[in-house]
């Protein structure tokens, strides 16, 4: 199965061929590297931008104003914070001009910890992103969703923030993407660029290289705003996204097997707009819920979800609903000990889940 980087690459290829994508650009996005996580290798509209996030977002806005369809990458979500004013402008352009100019642009960047990336390769961005009006925000946890959400992001005539979890970029999927070859070695041979020990070797190895894209790729898409019930359950609803879907799934197994607690696990996939109906239906069913993510806890996106659960399901809750987020600290430390202490781990999820389901009011 494709990993997430390959899934994104294939979706971008489909976008270039069939959906009018004109520019895929950012730092090291074009040849020879094709992205620090390989997500843009072999594509035909890629180019390398100056090392300048403000210029990247600015150029994306300009390209969209000029009727192009850009996909701009910020190399790490950690480095997007010098562009918030521009992201706000992109989000209010359609509104401020009373409908004169909409901006069909995608900004793609990776988020979250898990790669021992220290302070500046571990940042979450979703809380702040969700506070910027005028953007749709997606955040897949599987390669197949990564493909389907990228297709939707490209098709959308509005600014779409395409976030993806750093830690899952190289994780293989469990489901085939429509059109993807069954044999993953085959896929690698077809679309992964040759490697090399140093940049000089890489350049040499890639001289004249061309990907051979799978023929049968489709416009398989995940609608923006549609969550996925990853597993059904009856005792507790866990609402999460990104790599915490994976961790929560592990926690759910432990809870089921060891403690007989049945967890319903929801992967939001879209953070704005988000799938209120699926979440509320589940919480109404279980009466208990945990909202889970790894961003810092003050004015955290999960608190927004909690607020609306309260607003819509308050009298159906049978136990205090909770938010489990990252620690209230300035950053993620490099040492594995520090990283683990800062980001909710499986044991923490189990612990919270037990607390919620065993709570006596």
């Amino acid at each position, binding site marked *: 199965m494709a990993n997430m980087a390959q899934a994104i690459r294939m979706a971008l290829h489909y976008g270039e061929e069939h959906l009018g994508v004109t520019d895929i650009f950012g730092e090291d996005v074009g040849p020879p590297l094709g992205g620090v996580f390989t997500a843009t290798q072999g594509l035909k509209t890629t180019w390398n931008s100056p090392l300048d996030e403000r*210029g990247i977002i600015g150029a994306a806005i300009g390209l969209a104003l000029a009727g192009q369809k850009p996909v701009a990458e910020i190399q790490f979500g950690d480095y997007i914070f010098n562009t918030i004013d521009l992201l706000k402008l992109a989000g209010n352009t359609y*509104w401020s001009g009373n409908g004169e100019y909409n901006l069909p642009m995608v900004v793609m960047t990776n988020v979250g910890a898990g790669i021992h990336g220290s302070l500046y390769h571990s940042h979450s961005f979703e809380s702040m992103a969700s506070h910027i009006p005028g953007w749709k925000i997606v955040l897949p946890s599987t390669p197949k969703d990564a493909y389907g959400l990228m297709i939707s992001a490209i098709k959308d005539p509005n600014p779409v923030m395409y976030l993806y979890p750093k830690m899952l970029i190289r994780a293989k999927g469990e489901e085939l993407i429509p059109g993807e070859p069954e044999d993953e070695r085959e896929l690698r041979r077809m679309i992964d660029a040759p490697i090399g020990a140093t940049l000089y070797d890489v350049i040499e190895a890639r001289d004249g290289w061309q990907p051979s894209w799978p023929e049968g790729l489709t416009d398989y898409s995940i609608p923006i705003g549609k969550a996925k019930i990853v597993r059904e359950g009856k005792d507790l609803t866990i609402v999460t996204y990104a790599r915490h879907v994976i961790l929560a799934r592990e926690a759910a197994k432990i809870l089921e097997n060891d403690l007989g607690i049945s967890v319903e696990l929801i992967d939001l996939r879209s953070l704005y707009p988000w799938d209120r109906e699926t979440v509320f239906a589940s919480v109404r069913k279980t009466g208990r819920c945990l909202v889970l993510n790894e961003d810092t806890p003050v004015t955290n996106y999960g608190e927004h979800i909690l607020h609306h659960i309260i607003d819509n399901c308050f009298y159906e809750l049978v136990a205090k609903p909770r938010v489990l987020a990252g620690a209230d600290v300035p950053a993620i430390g490099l040492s594995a000990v520090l990283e683990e202490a800062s980001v909710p781990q499986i044991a923490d999820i189990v612990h919270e889940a037990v607390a919620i389901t065993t709570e006596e009011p």
Partner: protein
Amino acid sequence: MDKKLKLKILDIMITARCMEERMAKMSKSADAFFWLGGVGEEAFNVPLGLLAKVGHGLDYDFFHFHYRNGSTMVAMGMDPMDQLRQTHNRATDPFSGGRNFCNHYARKAWNVVPVTSTIQTQMSVAPGTAYAQKRHGGDGVTVVTFGDAGTAEGDFHVGLNWSTIKDRELPVLFICTNNAYGISTHYDEVHGQDNLAQIAAGYGMKTKVIDGNDVEVSYEALSKAYDYVRKERKPFFLEAMVSRLHGHSSSSGGNRIPDGKEPDCLHAWRDKLVEQDLITREDYDRKYQAETRRMLQLLEEVRKEPAPEPGDIYNYIFASV
């Protein structure tokens, strides 16, 4: 410059001036909460609009305007009534539906992208439209205008840098209207260069500094600059020294500055054309009074137009898929 053109420019300058003066007055009454604009920049801004290639799409020029380009818009053909609509925040304001400050234009039919209040961010956005134009071919250029103080923002560098990449130079006409002030802070207090073109020149682009109070100088410099960018598909940096005749905005009073402190380009042009016998002083005064009256009449019309409705805040958040 032939006689017809000279008079045309004068007419547009008068219209623009009378429009802005009306707007400044509006901001002292219940008609408007705020005024800022380009009173004192007409000698430069009118030619900027006249020489533009106005239309929709990549074959035409793109405009990333500063908030003092009212006379440029008039020169491009804007009905002053539209500007009064915005100043009076009517629902009929075609640029923002009563949402934005005056001089915050947005007109897709003319490639006028939304003017933003955030100083200098247009410099980071402009390379995007220019990149599309360069790829498209043709002779459309991207025009980006800004003040002197705003060049301190990092975005200034972003625009200059992205436009001068080897073999990827962009067709951008950079226009700095230098009025020697950012609100209350004088140029000399926050800059160390004789002019800002010196910084731009460091990137290897062509530059020129001119007296933006002189219509002929401005027209000629702009013709050459537009031409260069259209043909060479490379950037040009033009800095025009201009006046700020009503101060920064209504926040600082919006009053006419004391006589003699800064040149009035409209009066200078008037006097020149009178001297050249192209117009009499009486003609001018008549025109001026007529335009002043017309603006008031337009305002009276505008006053009858509807204000936005509360529910309008939810319009145009997302374009439909």
